[in-house]
């Protein structure tokens, strides 16, 4: 059973992520949220999509199980993300020609999206914030990664500096505290 992590995301994101999973996969899954309103909205979604639902609360987090046949197998649920994060501080991979670096960035996210070993979070700062705002291909990859449970955090200060706050198309606006906490909790931080 796939596990989607929507904790920390404001409504309607948890419902949007659950609906997208249903549209793409249509099988059983569990989604984690951190507030009762999201749970209620997910219950309504389950009803409209002919799913059975079961909620397990633990330490201010709610695991909302969606099941087609009403049989909930909690043990088989697996996190799709690992304990590593990716830090993106540029809109390219590596130094050198921008066109090549930009192409490599697209290929990186394409490949990551296809992989089974996913980071728990991708952190965008400085010029890196141009990727979830301006690069259509990467935006699509990030949306898919988010559905798979990857937390996409985008530096709000950086978005503001580049005048891109209103252009964010994937991920959530974040701050230095959250980004540093994410790094501290990870066993490995990859910087591109």
């Amino acid at each position, binding site marked *: 059973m796939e596990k989607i992590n929507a904790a920390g995301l404001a409504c309607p994101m948890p419902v949007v992520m659950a609906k997208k999973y249903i549209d793409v996969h249509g099988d059983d899954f569990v989604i984690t949220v951190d507030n009762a309103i999201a749970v209620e909205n997910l219950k309504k979604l389950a009803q409209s999509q002919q799913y059975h639902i079961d909620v397990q609360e633990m330490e201010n987090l709610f695991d909302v199980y969606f099941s087609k046949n009403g049989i909930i197998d909690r043990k088989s649920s697996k996190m799709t993300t690992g304990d590593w994060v990716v830090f993106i501080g540029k809109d390219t991979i590596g130094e050198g020609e921008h*066109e090549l670096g930009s192409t490599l960035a*697209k290929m990186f996210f394409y*490949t990551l999206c296809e992989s089974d070993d996913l980071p728990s979070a991708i952190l965008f700062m400085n010029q890196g914030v141009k990727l979830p705002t301006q690069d259509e291909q990467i935006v699509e990859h990030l949306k898919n990664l988010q559905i798979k449970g990857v937390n996409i955090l985008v530096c709000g200060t950086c978005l503001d500096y580049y005048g891109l706050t209103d252009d964010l198309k994937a991920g959530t606006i974040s701050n230095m505290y959250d980004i540093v906490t994410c790094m501290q909790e990870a066993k490995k931080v990859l910087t591109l």
Partner: protein
Amino acid sequence: MAAYYLMTFGTTHAAMTVKRCLNGKVLFSIMPTLREITASCGISLRFEKQEDLEKAKITAETYLSEKLYRTWQVQNGKPAPYTD
């Protein structure tokens, strides 16, 4: 998995040339060249629609020699040479 189409290239500059010409005109994604396809540069262009691949072929024919690009149809992750 739905089938899609690929254009691979003999050199990185050939890939960049076609990519530049198609930007904003044809829907495509940039992806790494599949491991099964050898003797190509690492950049491939992926097309979901056959008509978009055909447009890309016209562009490639215009700017590149025949040896510098190839077209493929990929089904269930397996590439096969594409011939129209």
